[in-house]
């Protein structure tokens, strides 16, 4: 489970994230949507321990990030919006690197890595340097690496960017399958259809503050949107 309490990030004059309070229980898929520059990536980076909050706290599976960052991080599978990787490693070497960092059982590694590579359609390219991969392939490799240590929490920023329709369908099904198995997923996305399809609850962030939080039906009720799709709800919530 994930708990964000009073999470705030300030950059000199700018408040990027303001007093965010979110609780995501075990096995839930939480969608995090908002316009560009609303504070989604900043929130995700604080949750992943990449940047420290100005105030407030992040708790992952009951572990406070500021108190035990390594322990909290070992529970997370982190997938950033841009798949920057070590270009001079091969996919298999990169998975080995991740497995060593996250302490994946050495005996299980060959089978697990092979499984991940096959699931993300990368086994044919596993011996090639990452620098020769396309954006989508890199994105799939980041996902494969993030799932290698069987995390209890997945934090993912824009998961569908750069993926082809087959991969998008596969990732959606995979997330649903993982959540059914008790994995908590916090997903930031601009693809409202994806959020509507797989998220149990959706939080809308605007100018650093959470302006709405609930199931798609809750959000429709909140905005008097009737049967309108999530796009209409989003427009109403974030209009100036």
């Amino acid at each position: 489970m994930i708990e964000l309490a009073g999470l705030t990030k300030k950059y000199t004059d700018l408040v990027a994230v303001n007093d965010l309070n979110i609780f995501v229980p075990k096995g839930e898929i939480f969608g995090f949507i908002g316009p560009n520059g609303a504070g989604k990536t900043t929130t995700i980076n604080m949750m992943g321990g990449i940047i420290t909050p100005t105030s407030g706290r992040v708790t992952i599976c009951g572990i406070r990030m500021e108190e035990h960052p390594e322990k909290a991080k070992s529970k997370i599978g982190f997938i950033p919006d841009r798949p920057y990787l070590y270009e001079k490693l091969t996919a298999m070497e990169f998975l080995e690197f991740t497995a060593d960092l996250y302490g994946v059982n050495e005996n299980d590694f060959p089978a697990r890595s092979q499984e991940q590579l096959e699931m993300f359609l990368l086994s044919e390219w596993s011996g090639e340097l990452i620098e020769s991969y396309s954006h989508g392939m890199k994105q799939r490799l980041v996902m494969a690496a993030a799932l290698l240590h069987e995390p209890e929490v997945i934090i993912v920023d824009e998961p569908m960017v750069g993926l082809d329709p087959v991969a998008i369908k596969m990732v959606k099904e995979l997330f649903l399958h993982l959540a059914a198995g008790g994995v908590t997923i916090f997903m930031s996305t601009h693809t409202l259809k994806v959020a509507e399809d797989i998220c149990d609850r959706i939080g809308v962030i605007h100018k650093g503050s959470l302006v709405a939080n609930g199931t798609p039906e809750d959000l429709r009720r909140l905005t008097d949107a009737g049967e309108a799709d999530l796009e209409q709800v989003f427009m109403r919530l974030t209009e100036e």
Partner: protein
Amino acid sequence: MKAVITLLKPRILSFKFKRFSSDNKEALIKLSVFGTIGVLFWGGIFAVSLRVLGYFKGIEELGDILAYKLLSMVLLTFLSVLVFSSILTSLSKLYLSRDLSLVHSMPVSSYKIFIARWIESTIDSSWMLIVYTLPVFISYGIVYQAGMFFYGNIIFVLLSLSIIASGISSLLVMLTVIAIPAGRIKSIFVFLGLIFFLVLFFAFRFLRPERLVDPEVFSTTLIYLKALKTPAPPYLPSTWAFDSLKTILEGKIVKSLFHTSLSWSFAGVVVFINIIIADAVYIKGLSKTQTAPSRLIKRSMSAGRLFFFLSRPVRALAVKEIRTFFRDQTQWSQLFLIGALVVIYVYNFNALPLAKAPIKTVYLQNLLSFLNMGLATFVLTAVSARFAFPAVSSERESFWLVKSAPITLRSFLWIKFFIYFFPLLALTEILIIATNILLKVTPFMMVLSIVNVFFMVPGIVSMGIGFGAAYPDFKSENPAQAVTSFGGLLYMMVCAGYIGTVIVLEAGPVYNLFMADINARVLTVIERIWIFGSFGLAFILSILAVVMPMNFGEKKLANTLL
């Protein structure tokens, strides 16, 4: 022409923003420090040139020949260095820049993009060389009392040479890219350039120019003079530039104008040919560059098994570091250069004419050995600046992997430290031991040097990693250039201060110990206290040099935004 100017605008605007909009303190300090160093260096070149030319002028008959020969050599070197640097710059500008796909998606002909990029490349590769060779040419004007026309002509001649060099380079690059992918050419050219430089250096070094001051060698002076009078090849652009400057120094303005015009007409022809070739092949070469790079060596390194004794996160980072280092072809030429540096360094000690020195040989050998500790650690600082300092920046935008991983920044930095510490320690000890053997120093000096360097290397490497972590540049296309940043400069200055302090602290005690050893006398109590105090202080300083930069780097890195 409008399209070309538009294409150049982002560069001009970013330059304007960088230079005139920066009001932060750090940028100002950086500008003033680099500015002062630059001005001092310029002044130094000017003073040396004036002195040398003034000296030549004083030698009857031979003086002018020497001065003109020097001018011809300076111009030939200017042209060669420009061609080499233009090859690398035009390769990057024309084929490897990140913004190329954006620029080529715009409705502009590829030859116009080529012209814009070529102009950028020409300016980037030549401005610094022009600025720093100007004092040499100005000195000629002053020593030979040339008129104002000479100074104007210098600019014209150097500009035409720059255009010619850049034109030749871009032609070479465009034609080669058709056959070999651009990424690989860069490594090949860097490698060839280094070999060329080293061959020249060794040729010069093995001639042992220090022997020229030896009167016994003067019998060959006549042959030497004959060689000096041989005219330079007339087809070389540097010869036209030389003829232009020489004739104007002799007061023949019309003749000089002819040679300057010859140089400019060739520059025009080179530009014209470039545009035609660019229109025909530039886009083809660029398309070839866009294809995925293939690996030179397919076999994977089994570095993992080599580090079986390390904990898994440490092993993960160590193996990753080694793999990425050796697969980066730009590092190969650097390693090659370091190998050459070691050979040159050791050879220079071998060539020292110690026997002819007026000071007692044993004393001189051991004095040199002591100073050599400082010199070797300065060499280590330079090597660390190239490898240890950019170690954190070399994570580039993949640094999120480290920050999101269950590993502390402290561990990450210490792993980096040890990866660079062992090879750099080995390198420094090799330098010290080899040179001490050549100097035939006493066992005392040998042990002292080995132990002293052993305690100094960790501090220098730690400062490299620590300052590199405190001032990282994750966005740079070439992290090795991080050392030219403010942090890099700070690192070099702190290192120099540390080495200087240790050497000063130890100089007196080492002298006492050495003399007592030679004269077989017992040290006084005061001498003993002094020795313990100085060595103790140097030891404490070395410990602080290891701990403080790492803590500083860790703190700053924790707050660094990706």
